[in-house]
Protein backbone atom coordinates (compact mmCIF):
# COMPACT_ATOMS: atom_id res chain seq x y z
CA UNK A 1 0.00 0.00 0.00
CA UNK A 2 1.43 3.41 -0.91
CA UNK A 3 1.67 5.69 2.09
CA UNK A 4 1.39 9.43 2.53
CA UNK A 5 4.09 11.44 4.27
CA UNK A 6 2.69 14.72 5.58
CA UNK A 7 4.28 18.07 6.56
CA UNK A 8 7.11 17.56 4.11
CA UNK A 9 9.44 20.54 3.56
CA UNK A 10 10.03 21.57 -0.05
CA UNK A 11 13.75 21.73 -0.86
CA UNK A 12 13.69 24.22 -3.75
CA UNK A 13 13.25 27.87 -2.86
CA UNK A 14 13.74 30.05 0.21
CA UNK A 15 10.02 29.91 1.07
CA UNK A 16 10.62 26.37 2.42
CA UNK A 17 6.93 25.43 2.28
CA UNK A 18 6.31 22.97 5.10
CA UNK A 19 2.90 21.57 4.18
CA UNK A 20 3.65 19.20 1.31
CA UNK A 21 2.09 15.75 1.19
CA UNK A 22 4.13 13.15 -0.65
CA UNK A 23 2.83 9.72 -1.64
CA UNK A 24 5.51 7.04 -1.46
CA UNK A 25 5.52 3.44 -2.69
CA UNK A 26 5.41 0.83 0.08
CA UNK A 27 9.03 -0.21 -0.46
CA UNK A 28 10.06 3.40 0.36
CA UNK A 29 11.89 3.73 -2.92
CA UNK A 30 9.68 5.74 -5.27
CA UNK A 31 7.71 8.97 -5.04
CA UNK A 32 4.27 8.48 -6.58
CA UNK A 33 2.81 11.94 -6.16
CA UNK A 34 3.16 15.34 -4.50
CA UNK A 35 0.37 17.56 -3.18
CA UNK A 36 0.42 21.28 -2.26
CA UNK A 37 3.74 22.04 -3.96
CA UNK A 38 4.06 24.61 -6.74
CA UNK A 39 5.18 23.56 -10.23
CA UNK A 40 8.87 23.86 -9.36
CA UNK A 41 8.61 22.09 -6.01
CA UNK A 42 6.62 19.24 -7.58
CA UNK A 43 9.23 18.84 -10.32
CA UNK A 44 11.96 18.59 -7.68
CA UNK A 45 10.24 15.55 -6.15
CA UNK A 46 9.25 14.06 -9.50
CA UNK A 47 12.84 14.21 -10.74
CA UNK A 48 13.78 11.69 -8.04
CA UNK A 49 12.10 8.85 -9.88
CA UNK A 50 13.31 9.70 -13.35
CA UNK A 51 15.33 6.97 -15.04
CA UNK A 52 18.95 7.52 -15.98
CA UNK A 53 20.06 8.98 -12.68
CA UNK A 54 23.81 8.68 -12.06
CA UNK A 55 24.47 6.39 -9.09
CA UNK A 56 28.27 6.15 -8.99
CA UNK A 57 31.05 8.77 -9.26
CA UNK A 58 32.34 9.50 -12.75
CA UNK A 59 35.77 10.64 -13.91
CA UNK A 60 36.47 12.62 -17.05
CA UNK A 61 38.78 10.89 -19.57
CA UNK A 62 41.27 12.44 -21.96
CA UNK A 63 38.81 12.02 -24.84
CA UNK A 64 36.11 13.95 -22.99
CA UNK A 65 33.97 10.93 -22.07
CA UNK A 66 33.26 9.87 -18.49
CA UNK A 67 34.08 6.54 -16.85
CA UNK A 68 32.49 5.18 -13.70
CA UNK A 69 34.76 4.96 -10.66
CA UNK A 70 34.18 3.83 -7.07
CA UNK A 71 33.37 6.17 -4.19
CA UNK A 72 36.75 5.25 -2.65
CA UNK A 73 38.63 6.33 -5.77
CA UNK A 74 36.63 9.57 -6.01
CA UNK A 75 37.20 10.37 -2.34
CA UNK A 76 40.93 9.71 -2.65
CA UNK A 77 41.22 11.91 -5.77
CA UNK A 78 39.27 14.72 -4.09
CA UNK A 79 41.28 14.58 -0.85
CA UNK A 80 44.54 14.63 -2.82
CA UNK A 81 43.37 17.62 -4.83
CA UNK A 82 42.40 19.50 -1.68
CA UNK A 83 45.65 18.77 0.13
CA UNK A 84 47.84 19.68 -2.85
CA UNK A 85 46.08 22.94 -3.71
CA UNK A 86 47.21 25.97 -1.71
CA UNK A 87 43.95 27.79 -2.28
CA UNK A 88 40.75 25.94 -3.19
CA UNK A 89 37.44 27.55 -4.02
CA UNK A 90 34.79 25.59 -2.11
CA UNK A 91 31.59 27.00 -3.56
CA UNK A 92 27.91 26.09 -3.36
CA UNK A 93 26.25 24.72 -0.20
CA UNK A 94 22.79 26.19 -0.93
CA UNK A 95 21.04 22.86 -1.55
CA UNK A 96 22.57 20.93 1.29
CA UNK A 97 21.96 20.77 5.03
CA UNK A 98 23.64 22.85 7.74
CA UNK A 99 25.11 19.65 9.17
CA UNK A 100 26.91 18.90 5.89
CA UNK A 101 28.15 22.50 5.71
CA UNK A 102 29.87 22.30 9.06
CA UNK A 103 31.80 19.20 7.96
CA UNK A 104 32.76 21.02 4.75
CA UNK A 105 34.03 23.98 6.77
CA UNK A 106 36.16 21.63 8.87
CA UNK A 107 37.82 20.40 5.67
CA UNK A 108 38.24 23.99 4.44
CA UNK A 109 40.00 24.98 7.66
CA UNK A 110 42.47 22.10 7.28
CA UNK A 111 43.29 22.57 3.61
CA UNK A 112 43.02 26.36 3.51
CA UNK A 113 39.96 26.74 1.31
CA UNK A 114 37.73 29.66 0.51
CA UNK A 115 34.13 28.88 1.40
CA UNK A 116 31.54 30.78 -0.60
CA UNK A 117 27.84 30.24 -1.21
CA UNK A 118 25.27 31.24 -3.83
CA UNK A 119 24.70 34.58 -2.11
CA UNK A 120 27.85 35.67 -3.90
CA UNK A 121 25.87 36.03 -7.18
CA UNK A 122 22.50 36.58 -5.56
CA UNK A 123 21.95 38.46 -2.30
CA UNK A 124 25.63 39.17 -1.66
CA UNK A 125 24.91 42.85 -2.23
CA UNK A 126 22.21 42.64 0.44
CA UNK A 127 24.60 41.07 2.91
CA UNK A 128 27.13 43.86 2.33
CA UNK A 129 24.42 46.44 2.99
CA UNK A 130 23.17 44.59 6.07
CA UNK A 131 26.73 44.48 7.44
CA UNK A 132 26.93 48.23 6.85
CA UNK A 133 23.60 49.48 8.17
CA UNK A 134 21.81 46.60 9.91
CA UNK A 135 18.36 45.34 9.01
CA UNK A 136 14.95 45.91 10.62
CA UNK A 137 13.31 42.60 9.72
CA UNK A 138 10.75 40.09 10.97
CA UNK A 139 9.49 36.59 10.25
CA UNK A 140 7.11 35.55 7.48
CA UNK A 141 4.58 34.61 10.16
CA UNK A 142 4.50 38.20 11.40
CA UNK A 143 3.87 39.38 7.86
CA UNK A 144 1.01 36.95 7.40
CA UNK A 145 -0.57 38.02 10.69
CA UNK A 146 0.12 41.76 10.64
CA UNK A 147 1.17 43.32 7.34
CA UNK A 148 -1.36 45.61 5.66
CA UNK A 149 1.06 47.31 3.21
CA UNK A 150 3.30 45.06 1.13
CA UNK A 151 5.89 46.40 -1.31
CA UNK A 152 7.61 44.05 -3.79
CA UNK A 153 10.63 45.90 -5.13
CA UNK A 154 12.65 44.30 -7.92
CA UNK A 155 11.40 40.82 -7.11
CA UNK A 156 8.98 38.51 -8.86
CA UNK A 157 7.70 35.87 -6.43
CA UNK A 158 5.05 34.77 -8.95
CA UNK A 159 7.97 33.12 -10.77
CA UNK A 160 10.74 32.73 -8.21
CA UNK A 161 8.80 31.90 -5.02
CA UNK A 162 5.44 30.75 -6.40
CA UNK A 163 3.67 30.06 -3.08
CA UNK A 164 5.07 33.04 -1.20
CA UNK A 165 2.09 35.23 -2.08
CA UNK A 166 -0.53 32.67 -1.06
CA UNK A 167 1.19 31.56 2.13
CA UNK A 168 2.53 34.82 3.52
CA UNK A 169 2.44 38.05 1.62
CA UNK A 170 -0.79 38.73 -0.32
CA UNK A 171 -3.65 36.30 0.14
CA UNK A 172 -3.60 34.60 3.57
CA UNK A 173 -5.84 35.64 6.43
CA UNK A 174 -3.96 36.11 9.67
CA UNK A 175 -4.63 37.10 13.27
CA UNK A 176 -4.80 40.85 12.60
CA UNK A 177 -5.31 40.51 8.85
CA UNK A 178 -8.65 38.71 8.86
CA UNK A 179 -9.69 40.14 5.52
CA UNK A 180 -6.73 38.57 3.73
CA UNK A 181 -6.03 40.12 0.34
CA UNK A 182 -8.79 42.72 0.75
CA UNK A 183 -7.19 44.14 3.86
CA UNK A 184 -3.76 44.56 2.27
CA UNK A 185 -2.53 47.11 -0.18
CA UNK A 186 0.09 45.67 -2.50
CA UNK A 187 2.66 47.71 -4.39
CA UNK A 188 5.06 46.38 -6.99
CA UNK A 189 8.05 48.34 -8.23
CA UNK A 190 9.82 46.85 -11.25
CA UNK A 191 11.15 47.72 -14.67
CA UNK A 192 8.86 45.02 -16.16
CA UNK A 193 5.12 44.50 -15.72
CA UNK A 194 5.70 41.10 -14.16
CA UNK A 195 3.14 38.50 -13.10
CA UNK A 196 3.67 39.74 -9.53
CA UNK A 197 2.83 43.27 -10.71
CA UNK A 198 -0.41 41.87 -12.09
CA UNK A 199 -1.38 40.77 -8.55
CA UNK A 200 -0.57 44.18 -7.08
CA UNK A 201 -3.00 47.03 -6.44
CA UNK A 202 -0.49 49.44 -7.81
CA UNK A 203 2.39 48.94 -10.23
CA UNK A 204 5.20 51.48 -10.35
CA UNK A 205 7.31 51.13 -13.47
CA UNK A 206 10.83 52.31 -12.74
CA UNK A 207 13.31 52.82 -15.52
CA UNK A 208 15.83 49.96 -15.51
CA UNK A 209 18.80 50.91 -13.32
CA UNK A 210 17.08 53.85 -11.56
CA UNK A 211 16.06 52.07 -8.35
CA UNK A 212 18.51 53.99 -6.21
CA UNK A 213 17.16 57.31 -7.44
CA UNK A 214 13.57 56.25 -6.85
CA UNK A 215 14.30 54.94 -3.34
CA UNK A 216 16.07 58.19 -2.62
CA UNK A 217 12.99 60.07 -3.82
CA UNK A 218 10.80 58.00 -1.49
CA UNK A 219 13.03 59.04 1.41
CA UNK A 220 12.90 62.66 0.32
CA UNK A 221 9.11 62.53 0.06
CA UNK A 222 8.86 60.91 3.49
CA UNK A 223 10.58 64.00 4.90
CA UNK A 224 8.26 66.32 2.99
CA UNK A 225 11.06 67.79 0.86
CA UNK A 226 10.75 68.90 -2.78
CA UNK A 227 11.22 66.47 -5.70
CA UNK A 228 11.88 66.97 -9.42
CA UNK A 229 8.91 66.30 -11.72
CA UNK A 230 9.84 62.69 -12.40
CA UNK A 231 12.35 60.31 -10.83
CA UNK A 232 13.34 57.12 -12.66
CA UNK A 233 10.32 57.63 -14.91
CA UNK A 234 7.84 57.97 -11.99
CA UNK A 235 5.91 61.27 -11.56
CA UNK A 236 6.49 63.05 -8.25
CA UNK A 237 2.75 63.14 -7.41
CA UNK A 238 2.72 59.34 -7.46
CA UNK A 239 5.74 59.18 -5.16
CA UNK A 240 4.18 61.56 -2.58
CA UNK A 241 0.89 59.66 -2.76
CA UNK A 242 2.48 56.26 -2.15
CA UNK A 243 4.70 57.47 0.67
CA UNK A 244 1.72 59.07 2.43
CA UNK A 245 -0.20 55.80 2.09
CA UNK A 246 2.73 53.77 3.43
CA UNK A 247 2.86 56.04 6.48
CA UNK A 248 -0.72 55.09 7.33
CA UNK A 249 0.14 51.38 7.47
CA UNK A 250 -0.27 49.47 10.70
CA UNK A 251 2.55 47.20 9.63
CA UNK A 252 4.44 47.53 6.35
CA UNK A 253 6.96 45.27 4.68
CA UNK A 254 9.32 45.72 1.75
CA UNK A 255 10.40 42.56 -0.07
CA UNK A 256 13.29 43.00 -2.47
CA UNK A 257 15.11 40.75 -4.90
CA UNK A 258 17.57 40.56 -7.76
CA UNK A 259 16.11 43.70 -9.33
CA UNK A 260 18.00 45.62 -6.64
CA UNK A 261 21.00 43.37 -6.00
CA UNK A 262 21.98 42.80 -9.65
CA UNK A 263 21.38 46.29 -10.95
CA UNK A 264 23.84 49.16 -11.05
CA UNK A 265 24.35 50.38 -7.50
CA UNK A 266 24.20 46.85 -6.03
CA UNK A 267 24.68 47.11 -2.24
CA UNK A 268 23.89 50.83 -2.30
CA UNK A 269 20.39 50.02 -3.58
CA UNK A 270 19.82 47.77 -0.57
CA UNK A 271 21.46 50.23 1.76
CA UNK A 272 18.98 52.95 0.82
CA UNK A 273 16.01 50.56 0.86
CA UNK A 274 16.94 49.65 4.45
CA UNK A 275 17.25 53.34 5.29
CA UNK A 276 13.82 54.01 3.79
CA UNK A 277 12.46 51.26 6.05
CA UNK A 278 14.17 52.93 8.98
CA UNK A 279 12.59 56.30 8.03
CA UNK A 280 9.14 54.72 7.81
CA UNK A 281 9.56 53.51 11.38
CA UNK A 282 9.31 57.14 12.47
CA UNK A 283 5.66 56.91 11.41
CA UNK A 284 4.62 53.28 11.86
CA UNK A 285 6.04 49.75 12.09
CA UNK A 286 7.95 48.77 8.94
CA UNK A 287 10.24 45.85 8.09
CA UNK A 288 12.29 44.73 5.10
CA UNK A 289 13.22 41.25 3.87
CA UNK A 290 15.47 39.82 1.18
CA UNK A 291 13.71 37.28 -1.07
CA UNK A 292 16.38 34.61 -0.66
CA UNK A 293 16.11 32.34 -3.67
CA UNK A 294 18.17 29.18 -3.49
CA UNK A 295 16.76 26.91 -0.79
CA UNK A 296 19.23 26.81 2.15
CA UNK A 297 21.52 29.66 1.08
CA UNK A 298 20.33 31.47 4.20
CA UNK A 299 21.54 28.49 6.27
CA UNK A 300 24.98 28.65 4.72
CA UNK A 301 25.17 32.31 5.73
CA UNK A 302 24.05 31.39 9.24
CA UNK A 303 26.57 28.57 9.71
CA UNK A 304 29.45 30.61 8.26
CA UNK A 305 28.29 33.56 10.33
CA UNK A 306 28.42 31.79 13.66
CA UNK A 307 31.63 29.93 12.83
CA UNK A 308 33.67 32.74 11.26
CA UNK A 309 31.72 35.98 11.54
CA UNK A 310 31.03 36.45 7.82
CA UNK A 311 28.03 35.14 5.87
CA UNK A 312 29.79 34.30 2.58
CA UNK A 313 33.13 34.45 0.74
CA UNK A 314 35.16 33.36 3.78
CA UNK A 315 38.85 32.91 3.07
CA UNK A 316 40.42 30.32 5.39
CA UNK A 317 43.64 30.01 3.44
CA UNK A 318 45.62 31.84 6.11
CA UNK A 319 44.78 29.05 8.58
CA UNK A 320 44.93 31.26 11.70
CA UNK A 321 42.24 33.76 10.75
CA UNK A 322 39.13 34.06 8.60
CA UNK A 323 39.04 36.86 6.05
CA UNK A 324 36.21 38.27 3.97
CA UNK A 325 36.53 41.02 1.41
CA UNK A 326 34.00 41.41 -1.36
CA UNK A 327 35.68 41.76 -4.74
CA UNK A 328 38.62 39.78 -3.38
CA UNK A 329 37.39 36.59 -1.74
CA UNK A 330 34.15 36.35 -3.76
CA UNK A 331 33.97 33.40 -6.19
CA UNK A 332 33.50 35.24 -9.49
CA UNK A 333 36.38 37.63 -8.73
CA UNK A 334 38.65 34.76 -7.65
CA UNK A 335 37.92 32.95 -10.90
CA UNK A 336 38.22 36.10 -13.01
CA UNK A 337 41.72 36.59 -11.62
CA UNK A 338 42.44 32.84 -11.80
CA UNK A 339 43.56 33.02 -8.20
CA UNK A 340 42.58 29.58 -6.96
CA UNK A 341 44.40 26.34 -7.68
CA UNK A 342 41.42 23.98 -7.57
CA UNK A 343 37.61 24.10 -7.47
CA UNK A 344 35.29 22.10 -5.26
CA UNK A 345 31.59 22.61 -6.04
CA UNK A 346 28.80 21.18 -3.93
CA UNK A 347 25.00 21.45 -4.16
CA UNK A 348 24.85 24.10 -6.85
CA UNK A 349 25.56 24.65 -10.54
CA UNK A 350 27.93 27.56 -11.24
CA UNK A 351 28.28 26.28 -14.81
CA UNK A 352 24.72 27.42 -15.45
CA UNK A 353 24.72 30.50 -13.22
CA UNK A 354 28.17 32.12 -13.33
CA UNK A 355 29.23 34.37 -16.21
CA UNK A 356 31.05 32.37 -18.85
CA UNK A 357 34.47 33.99 -18.31
CA UNK A 358 34.53 32.80 -14.71
CA UNK A 359 33.66 29.26 -15.82
CA UNK A 360 36.32 29.25 -18.55
CA UNK A 361 38.84 30.01 -15.81
CA UNK A 362 37.33 27.28 -13.59
CA UNK A 363 37.45 24.66 -16.36
CA UNK A 364 41.26 24.95 -16.49
CA UNK A 365 41.65 23.84 -12.86
CA UNK A 366 41.27 20.47 -11.18
CA UNK A 367 37.57 20.37 -10.31
CA UNK A 368 35.30 18.13 -8.27
CA UNK A 369 31.51 18.59 -8.36
CA UNK A 370 29.18 16.98 -5.83
CA UNK A 371 25.56 17.01 -6.99
CA UNK A 372 22.70 14.48 -7.15
CA UNK A 373 22.22 15.06 -10.90
CA UNK A 374 24.16 15.75 -14.06
CA UNK A 375 24.29 19.50 -14.59
CA UNK A 376 26.39 22.00 -16.56
CA UNK A 377 29.20 22.06 -13.98
CA UNK A 378 29.53 18.28 -13.70
CA UNK A 379 30.24 18.18 -17.44
CA UNK A 380 33.30 20.43 -17.17
CA UNK A 381 34.62 18.78 -13.98
CA UNK A 382 37.27 16.11 -13.57
CA UNK A 383 35.11 14.20 -11.10
CA UNK A 384 31.35 14.16 -10.52
CA UNK A 385 30.23 12.55 -7.27
CA UNK A 386 26.46 11.86 -7.06
CA UNK A 387 24.79 12.13 -3.65
CA UNK A 388 21.35 11.74 -2.09
CA UNK A 389 18.87 14.59 -2.54
CA UNK A 390 18.72 16.63 0.68
CA UNK A 391 15.12 17.17 1.81
CA UNK A 392 13.93 14.18 -0.24
CA UNK A 393 16.26 11.24 0.42
CA UNK A 394 17.90 12.53 3.59
CA UNK A 395 16.85 15.08 6.22
CA UNK A 396 18.84 17.90 7.78
CA UNK A 397 18.47 21.47 8.94
CA UNK A 398 17.69 24.32 6.53
CA UNK A 399 16.94 28.03 7.04
CA UNK A 400 13.96 29.80 5.52
CA UNK A 401 14.43 33.24 3.92
CA UNK A 402 13.43 34.91 7.21
CA UNK A 403 16.23 33.05 9.06
CA UNK A 404 13.92 30.51 10.71
CA UNK A 405 15.58 27.07 10.91
CA UNK A 406 13.42 24.13 9.86
CA UNK A 407 14.29 20.45 10.18
CA UNK A 408 13.60 18.84 6.81
CA UNK A 409 12.26 15.34 6.27
CA UNK A 410 13.42 12.28 4.48
CA UNK A 411 10.61 10.83 2.36
CA UNK A 412 12.26 8.02 0.38
CA UNK A 413 15.50 6.03 0.49
CA UNK A 414 18.33 7.16 -1.79
CA UNK A 415 19.26 4.76 -4.62
CA UNK A 416 21.25 1.83 -3.29
CA UNK A 417 24.85 2.65 -2.44
CA UNK A 418 24.51 6.42 -3.01
CA UNK A 419 26.08 8.39 -0.15
CA UNK A 420 24.58 11.46 1.52
CA UNK A 421 26.48 14.77 1.57
CA UNK A 422 27.29 14.24 5.24
CA UNK A 423 28.64 10.71 4.72
CA UNK A 424 30.67 11.76 1.70
CA UNK A 425 32.18 14.86 3.34
CA UNK A 426 33.01 12.88 6.49
CA UNK A 427 34.92 10.34 4.40
CA UNK A 428 36.74 13.07 2.45
CA UNK A 429 37.60 14.70 5.79
CA UNK A 430 39.13 11.44 7.10
CA UNK A 431 41.12 10.91 3.92
CA UNK A 432 42.43 14.50 4.16
CA UNK A 433 43.54 13.73 7.74
CA UNK A 434 45.37 10.59 6.60
CA UNK A 435 47.13 12.39 3.76
CA UNK A 436 48.14 15.29 5.96
CA UNK A 437 49.44 12.94 8.67
CA UNK A 438 51.62 11.34 6.01
CA UNK A 439 53.10 14.76 5.38
CA UNK A 440 51.12 15.69 2.30
CA UNK A 441 51.36 19.27 3.41
Amino acid at each position, binding site marked *: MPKEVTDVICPFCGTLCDDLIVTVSDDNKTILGVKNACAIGAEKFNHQRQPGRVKRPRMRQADGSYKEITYDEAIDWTANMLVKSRKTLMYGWASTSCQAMSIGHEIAEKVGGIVDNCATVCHGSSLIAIEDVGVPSCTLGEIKNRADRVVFWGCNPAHAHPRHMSRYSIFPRGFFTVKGHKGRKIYCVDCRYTDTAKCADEFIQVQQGFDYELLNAFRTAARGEALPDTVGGVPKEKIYEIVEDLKTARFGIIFFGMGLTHTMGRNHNIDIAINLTRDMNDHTKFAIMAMRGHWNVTGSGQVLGWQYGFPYAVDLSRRDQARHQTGETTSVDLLNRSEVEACFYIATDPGAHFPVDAMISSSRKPTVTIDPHINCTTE*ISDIHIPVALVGVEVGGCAYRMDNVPIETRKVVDPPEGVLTDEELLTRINHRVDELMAKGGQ
Partner: protein
Amino acid sequence: MAEKKITLNMITCRTIQQGVGMEAGKTSQKYFDACTIMHMHPEDMKRLGVWKNTNVKVTSSVGSVIVKAVETREDLVPGLAHIPMGPWANRIVPAYTFSTGEPCFKGFPVDVEIAANERILGAVEVLQDACGLIRK
Protein backbone atom coordinates in the same frame (compact mmCIF):
# COMPACT_ATOMS: atom_id res chain seq x y z
CA MET B 1 13.04 49.82 -43.23
CA ALA B 2 14.13 47.29 -40.72
CA GLU B 3 17.59 47.73 -39.24
CA LYS B 4 20.19 44.98 -39.57
CA LYS B 5 21.41 45.25 -36.02
CA ILE B 6 19.83 46.91 -32.99
CA THR B 7 21.20 47.64 -29.55
CA LEU B 8 19.13 46.72 -26.50
CA ASN B 9 19.51 46.85 -22.73
CA MET B 10 19.67 43.24 -21.48
CA ILE B 11 18.44 41.86 -18.17
CA THR B 12 18.56 38.22 -17.07
CA CYS B 13 15.99 36.91 -14.57
CA ARG B 14 14.35 33.77 -13.24
CA THR B 15 11.10 32.53 -14.76
CA ILE B 16 8.94 29.76 -13.35
CA GLN B 17 9.47 27.77 -16.56
CA GLN B 18 13.23 28.09 -16.01
CA GLY B 19 12.80 26.84 -12.43
CA VAL B 20 10.71 23.86 -13.51
CA GLY B 21 13.12 23.09 -16.35
CA MET B 22 16.08 23.22 -14.00
CA GLU B 23 14.47 20.66 -11.69
CA ALA B 24 13.50 18.47 -14.65
CA GLY B 25 17.24 18.38 -15.40
CA LYS B 26 19.77 20.67 -17.02
CA THR B 27 19.84 18.48 -20.10
CA SER B 28 16.03 18.25 -20.37
CA GLN B 29 13.96 19.66 -23.22
CA LYS B 30 11.94 21.68 -20.68
CA TYR B 31 15.07 23.52 -19.55
CA PHE B 32 16.19 24.11 -23.12
CA ASP B 33 12.79 25.49 -24.13
CA ALA B 34 12.58 27.74 -21.08
CA CYS B 35 16.04 29.30 -21.29
CA THR B 36 16.94 29.63 -24.96
CA ILE B 37 14.56 32.49 -25.62
CA MET B 38 14.92 36.24 -25.61
CA HIS B 39 11.85 38.26 -24.71
CA MET B 40 11.58 41.36 -26.89
CA HIS B 41 9.14 44.23 -27.18
CA PRO B 42 7.05 44.08 -30.42
CA GLU B 43 8.39 47.51 -31.43
CA ASP B 44 11.98 46.27 -31.20
CA MET B 45 11.07 43.20 -33.23
CA LYS B 46 9.65 45.46 -35.89
CA ARG B 47 12.75 47.64 -35.78
CA LEU B 48 14.97 44.61 -36.35
CA GLY B 49 12.55 43.08 -38.84
CA VAL B 50 12.44 39.76 -37.03
CA TRP B 51 9.46 37.42 -36.94
CA LYS B 52 8.37 35.77 -33.71
CA ASN B 53 10.23 32.54 -32.90
CA THR B 54 13.19 33.28 -35.16
CA ASN B 55 16.75 32.68 -34.02
CA VAL B 56 18.85 35.75 -33.30
CA LYS B 57 22.48 36.30 -32.44
CA VAL B 58 22.98 38.35 -29.28
CA THR B 59 26.40 39.89 -28.74
CA SER B 60 27.73 41.63 -25.63
CA SER B 61 31.20 42.80 -24.68
CA VAL B 62 32.13 39.22 -23.69
CA GLY B 63 30.72 37.09 -26.50
CA SER B 64 27.73 35.95 -28.53
CA VAL B 65 24.96 33.44 -28.14
CA ILE B 66 22.18 32.20 -30.41
CA VAL B 67 18.70 32.24 -28.89
CA LYS B 68 15.14 32.45 -30.15
CA ALA B 69 13.40 35.84 -30.22
CA VAL B 70 9.92 35.73 -28.69
CA GLU B 71 7.41 38.46 -28.06
CA THR B 72 7.31 39.41 -24.40
CA ARG B 73 4.53 38.18 -22.17
CA GLU B 74 5.68 40.11 -19.14
CA ASP B 75 5.54 43.55 -20.62
CA LEU B 76 8.90 45.11 -21.30
CA VAL B 77 9.37 48.69 -22.39
CA PRO B 78 10.90 49.18 -25.85
CA GLY B 79 14.67 48.96 -25.69
CA LEU B 80 14.69 46.43 -22.86
CA ALA B 81 15.21 42.71 -23.51
CA HIS B 82 15.23 39.67 -21.22
CA ILE B 83 16.81 36.20 -21.37
CA PRO B 84 15.98 33.76 -18.52
CA MET B 85 19.00 32.87 -16.39
CA GLY B 86 21.02 29.84 -17.48
CA PRO B 87 24.17 28.94 -19.42
CA TRP B 88 22.91 30.71 -22.56
CA ALA B 89 22.28 34.03 -20.81
CA ASN B 90 25.57 33.69 -18.95
CA ARG B 91 27.42 33.26 -22.24
CA ILE B 92 27.02 37.04 -22.63
CA VAL B 93 26.91 38.29 -19.01
CA PRO B 94 29.97 40.45 -18.28
CA ALA B 95 31.94 38.97 -15.39
CA TYR B 96 33.20 42.20 -13.83
CA THR B 97 31.74 42.87 -10.41
CA PHE B 98 32.73 46.42 -9.39
CA SER B 99 34.34 44.72 -6.37
CA THR B 100 31.00 43.53 -5.02
CA GLY B 101 31.25 39.90 -6.12
CA GLU B 102 28.09 40.32 -8.24
CA PRO B 103 28.52 40.18 -12.01
CA CYS B 104 26.43 42.38 -14.35
CA PHE B 105 23.38 40.12 -14.62
CA LYS B 106 21.09 43.06 -15.30
CA GLY B 107 21.49 46.12 -17.43
CA PHE B 108 24.25 45.59 -20.01
CA PRO B 109 24.15 46.58 -23.69
CA VAL B 110 23.81 43.93 -26.39
CA ASP B 111 23.65 43.96 -30.18
CA VAL B 112 20.94 41.81 -31.72
CA GLU B 113 20.91 40.55 -35.30
CA ILE B 114 18.87 37.94 -37.14
CA ALA B 115 20.50 34.50 -37.36
CA ALA B 116 17.59 32.44 -38.67
CA ASN B 117 19.72 29.55 -39.87
CA GLU B 118 22.05 29.21 -36.93
CA ARG B 119 21.61 26.43 -34.40
CA ILE B 120 21.02 26.96 -30.68
CA LEU B 121 23.55 24.90 -28.71
CA GLY B 122 22.51 22.55 -25.86
CA ALA B 123 22.96 23.50 -22.17
CA VAL B 124 26.14 21.50 -21.68
CA GLU B 125 27.36 22.16 -25.21
CA VAL B 126 27.16 25.96 -24.89
CA LEU B 127 29.38 25.83 -21.81
CA GLN B 128 31.79 23.18 -23.06
CA ASP B 129 32.10 25.10 -26.31
CA ALA B 130 33.09 28.27 -24.45
CA CYS B 131 35.59 26.34 -22.30
CA GLY B 132 37.16 24.72 -25.37
CA LEU B 133 36.22 21.24 -24.20
CA ILE B 134 34.48 20.12 -27.37
CA ARG B 135 36.75 18.11 -29.60
CA LYS B 136 35.97 19.07 -33.16
